[in-house]
């Protein structure tokens, strides 16, 4: 068997029989539906990414404020005052009723 001739013959057979260009029914509708679904997924991903970024920023700010409150002595005094003031305000009505009795 002449291999080179067989190769030529088979390649000629492939050239003589080009594949069909038939497109399945409503193929373009299917592609458009997929594109819409993908866009919806993209919006969701965008939101999730934004929320993650916001969460990380908030965590960093909380850590910085915590460190600032921890290492700043005046801040701790202020915090005592604040808590005392808060307690006084909250219990003011009870104190008044005690004094009245």
């Amino acid at each position: 068997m002449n291999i080179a001739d067989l190769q030529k013959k088979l390649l000629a057979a492939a050239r003589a029989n080009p594949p069909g260009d038939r497109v399945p029914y409503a193929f373009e509708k299917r592609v458009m539906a997929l594109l819409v679904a993908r866009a919806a997924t993209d919006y969701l991903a965008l939101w999730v990414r934004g929320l993650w970024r916001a969460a990380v920023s908030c965590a960093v700010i909380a850590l910085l404020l915590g460190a600032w409150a921890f290492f700043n002595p005046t801040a701790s005094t202020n915090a005592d005052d604040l808590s005392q003031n808060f307690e006084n305000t909250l219990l003011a009505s009870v104190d008044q009723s005690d004094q009245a009795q």
Partner: protein
Amino acid sequence: MEQTEADLIAAVLRGNAASFEPLVQRYSPRVFATARRYARRESEVEDIAQEVWLKAFEKLKSFRGEAPFEHWLMRLTVRTCYDFLRGHQRNRESPFSDLTEPENDWLERFVAQPETASENADAAKLLVERILERLSPPARLVITLLEIEDRSVKEIAQLTGWSVPLVKVRAFRARADMRKILAKMARDKYL
């Protein structure tokens, strides 16, 4: 009035996704015909065509309009088909003992009288598909583009993104690989 291709592309890029549909409708026959050269099952052909259009939509921003849209789309199609071939390498080592009767008959006719073996026979078409399936993905791609679709080396380089010397080297190797496969088929059948 029918919108031109450039109008449709500009509308899609402005955010009007619906303008993409006429492009899909217009060029899908070309995409399907190309995909059918590399995939045998119709479900695989549809998957390739779908992938091509999803990629085309995503990458439409990169289309600069210097060459026709069809050329850009064909580059994308050929590259998607190549990715498909790389992901679906099967039947490359199976023996040739399972040839069908018409395929065997065609080969017998070719051995006896090569000129009587018709190139239009279905058996020849099936046989060439079997041979192509046994080639490596780059060999199959280059044989299809160069020998079957009759494209120039330069065109293949543009379609595949390979350099011109690489296309030439791969074409040389692909022809040699094809001859090796044919020789193996002859051995399996006649020894």
